[in-house]
């Protein structure tokens, strides 16, 4: 009921998240909360913050779980999840008031809280569960890609990236224009075969995830699987005897 931009945005700002080095530390989630609780969608309300079942508005959450491959090998995955700023954002088209919208300038999906009626249709429509309803204000809130940070002329140039990106300790989060094939993020996606999450949902997410790299085994491939012993007897004496007069420190 709300239109997407008539012409596709020239810029598609988004995140590229490297699952090879995400350690699940929650830095991105908390720094996001910290920036945004006084940001465009302020506050990110917390309900019962000091009691039972504390729960607040978060734009980004990290899930840690185990997966199993075909051979029964398990691995632990840390998976940060936030709005993917989809090209065909169903949260926008389902919005009855125009509160949920996609910016023409850069493709960021935002909520205009002034006209949001809190009907939650958008959160039902989003296949990624990326929105957070603020019960006390009766409005929907979501990742703004730190729209009030990335263009903020009061901040030094290097700070003009989303909070989750600047704070990530392992450098697992990247920000840029995914519509520009020459951008760093696009190059990264190309080099690492970055993928969109659940493409079958046909929402055309902008954000990309970089899969874990193949395990580093190159050292193994070039070397014998075990060292060759200079002596194979069961005690140390023969080798020690060989070393007695041997100049070893060369």
């Amino acid at each position, binding site marked *: 009921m709300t239109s997407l931009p008539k012409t596709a945005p020239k810029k598609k700002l988004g995140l590229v998240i490297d699952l090879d080095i995400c*350690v699940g530390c929650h830095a991105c989630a908390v720094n996001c909360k910290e920036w945004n609780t006084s940001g465009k969608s302020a506050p990110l309300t917390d309900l019962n913050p000091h*009691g039972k079942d*504390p729960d607040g508005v978060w734009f980004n959450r990290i899930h840690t779980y185990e997966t199993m491959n075909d051979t029964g090998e398990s691995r632990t995955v*840390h998976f940060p999840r936030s709005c993917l700023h989809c090209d065909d954002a169903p949260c926008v088209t389902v919005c009855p008031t125009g509160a949920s*919208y996609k910016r023409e300038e850069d493709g960021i999906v935002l909520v*205009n809280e002034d006209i949001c009626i809190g009907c939650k249709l958008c959160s039902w429509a989003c296949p990624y569960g990326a929105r957070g309803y603020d019960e006390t204000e009766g409005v929907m809130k979501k990742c703004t890609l730190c729209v009030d940070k990335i263009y903020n002329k009061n901040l030094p140039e290097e700070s003009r990236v989303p909070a989750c990106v600047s704070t990530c300790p392992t450098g697992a989060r990247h920000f840029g224009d995914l519509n520009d094939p020459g951008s760093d993020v696009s190059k990264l996606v190309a080099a690492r075969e970055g993928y969109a999450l659940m493409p079958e949902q046909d929402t055309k997410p902008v954000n990309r995830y970089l899969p874990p790299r193949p395990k580093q*085994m190159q050292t193994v491939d070039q*070397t014998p699987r*075990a060292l060759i012993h200079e002596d194979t007897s069961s005690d140390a004496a023969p080798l*020690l005897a060989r070393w007695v007069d041997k100049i070893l420190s060369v």
Partner: protein
Amino acid sequence: MDFNPFATVKEEIDLSPQISDEVKTSTCYMCACRCGIKVHMKDGKIRYIEGNPDHPVNKGVLCAKGSSGIMHQNAPAKLTKPLLRVGERGSGEFKEIEWDEALELATNWLGETRAKDPGKLAFFTGRDQSQSLTGWWASAYGTHNFAAHGGFCSVNMAAGGLYTIGGAFWEFGDPDFDRTKYFMMLGVADDHDSNPIKIGLGKMKTRGDCKFVAVNPSRNGYGAIADEWVGIRPGTDGLFIFAIIHELLRAEKIDFASLARYSNSPWLVIQNPGGADDGLFVRGKKGEPLVWDLKKKKAVSAHSKNFTPAFAGKRKVGRKTVVPAFELLASRYMAAEYAPDAVAETCGIGADTIRRIAAELAHAAFAEEVVIDQAWTDAWGRKHDKMIGRPVAIHAMRGISAHTNGFHTCRAIHMLQALLGSIDTPGGWRYKPPFPKPIPPGDKPTPPHYKPNTPLGGPSNGFPTSPDDLVVGADGAPLRIDKAFSWEYPLALHGMMHMVLRNAAEKDPYAIDVLFMFMANMAWNSSMNIGETLGFFTAKNADGTYKIPKIIYSDAFYSETVPYCDLILPDTTYLERYDCLSVLDRPFSAAHGVADGIRQPVVPLDRDVRAFQTVLLDLGAKLGLPGMVNGDRSPKFPGGYPDYLVNHERKPGIGPLAGWRGKDGDKSGIGEPNPNQLDKYIENGCFWSEEMPLDIQFFKHANQAYLDYAKKMGWIGAAKPVVFQLYSEDLQKFRLAAQGHGERQPPEKDRERIETYFDPLPIWYKPFEERDVDADEYPLHALSQRPMHMYHSWGSQNTWLRQITNVNKLHIHKDMAMSLGIIDDDWVWIEGRHGRVKGQVKLIKGVNKNTVWTWNAVGKRKGAWGLKHDSPEFNKGFLLNHIISDVLKPNKHGHEFSNSDPVTGQAAWYDLRVKISKCAPEEFGTTYPIYDAVKGPVSDMEVSRYGADLKGSKT
């Protein structure tokens, strides 16, 4: 203007809101990592805390803890005023008092004790980042009973390193993430060095030419992104390392040239079984150790410039039979008992895996050299035209050290690094200045003098190198309240805070008058055996007085410990005070250069609280302690801690801060006090760092230009090389005493322990709790660790962090759970020899099959931390501490030793053995034990709308 009622309203967004009125830099203290922060202040409130991009520790990033600093500052448990206990200890009945009264009381208590016997004050400072102040204060007061929390933290790591290579993991050294080709990380609870490790791992993996192996019973955190996870059985890492060394030795994949130059492995050891000199180094006329020169066919000084040492062979020097230390080392670890096949089952790692990892390590070290084209000169004057690196880097942490065999395991790891020749080489593990230090550093612990009103005359803690340095009486009995530096725990370098309450309550070895603690949650998650420990706080004599007569405690928050103390001196938060991260203390330098820093007040005080360090100096002045008063007894530092930071000199020209010294601020390291020093720090983002030229960035233990620089900076007494002590003569001296040699003899109850555990070469033995329980009855290892978003953080009641974790589950292997009939989310009894706790399980694959683990310190005691009484932390969260005994089963002499490493006194949190059984259905839903609520303040907040009033630009 056209009006169209159907058009969508276009949102006007302020893309450039004014974020702050002011940005102040400081240093984070949400954990122990000491990252630089920029705090954006708006309307007197914190708008945003971000990492400082210029800071050497975190380079702009900030973790979840640091990012939640706003909620630390707004915590409901902040203390607001000094408190004096009016009810029984533990009742939580206090009255608020004024600071004048609080300080007068404290001064009287401390003054009375000092006037009788200063040693009757036990001063233990917990999570203390100002140990160079607190230790100095203790010494000026005159008590030998001082330490911080290292004894129950990671002293095995520090002691193992300082007695072997003159440095240690984390604070004293870093992996060379930029260049390493093989990175091995050992042990659970790996997040001590939070952001630097994460930055390093990210860079290293992105570089893509390095293998990362995590040796860890649990595959959470960093293990999840490792190229290989080795799910070792807890407490067996030493054996695993020995098997690797076994392989390297048998394949001669040893950096003999490096060992000859930088280690004592060619030094000649006297072989005289039963003799008083057995196992000591044979020495020349000037006391210098000797090596056998194969070319000269005679013994020569180990300090000489050129020699061709023998690494094996029995020879005669004078009338003494000697062998190189390396022969002792090699014959031990080449024995069949350390072959991969022999250790595989105990370690829970396949022998093939161990052999392969040994091969990979050797390949990385010797076939993938990293060479920096930089000439340097070693301490013997030999010129090297390049810096040749053996790019194997190792990091180890709590999981290694928190076992009763941790000291020797730490030594084993450092020995492996030395055998591969990787220490402080490009791609290896690198010292952070002011390390390396002499092995061990020169300070000795000072024994008590029992004289009224008299300073101790030396530091309370130090580095014993023989039984002569122990703090024991003529009968060999301990003289410290924690029994550190006694025959029971001779190298307890960081003291044993975890034994203070028991010993003081049992008056063993004696009664104390005052216990003064700072920032240590001894009535909860910082103690083993919580139930009994609470009893130690409240134990009374027959006349109704407390066995620990007076307890003073300083903390910023209402923790579980507050209600058990008598006088509470409320501290500030890290955003409200000056602090110092000193090179004299626990440096945060990088391997390429020294650094130190400060905290500055960022948020104005809104409570009647004072910074602990300033209070301590104030008390010192009121007590007239030397160094804290002028000749007329007026306070020497009337400006409190910041005054001290600038004007205190430990030695002429050396003060707490190394940067901008000298009247004009143009000196670093040594220089007279600079009245503008703090301003210079603040101008520079609250830190000082000095990058060293490339030619002194590596081989610091033997790099003459580096050693000269370190001497110039005042870090070492003489510019002499630091030679790795793979074979420890210091340890052998204790063992000789246990064998009956020398004047100072251990009591009989200690003799066998000393002889066994003071082996001059690393050994492995079964952790004591495992040795002492029936493995069939208690088949599982139980570990606790903290999640990355709470690691080392003080108060996981944090409004934001507790939304991520407010209950802890017991992680158990799926196969193990299945065999016990347990499914996900079941409630189980976790039972050890010392009791049982109840918790809920989570089934996983990424854990050693014989191990269960949980998050520590999520479970809280009802009534503490300002939380509402229905909080899950109280009712579902649990601690394993309840079932970790603080003492071992009595030995054959009937003596109960601390559940600690027999060498260092490190608390053995990770030796716990348990059995698991499913709870009855009616037992589901709540944890056990739940203690009565303490009477702390309780938050009444229903909704937090923090930030609502800080939005947008000011109008």
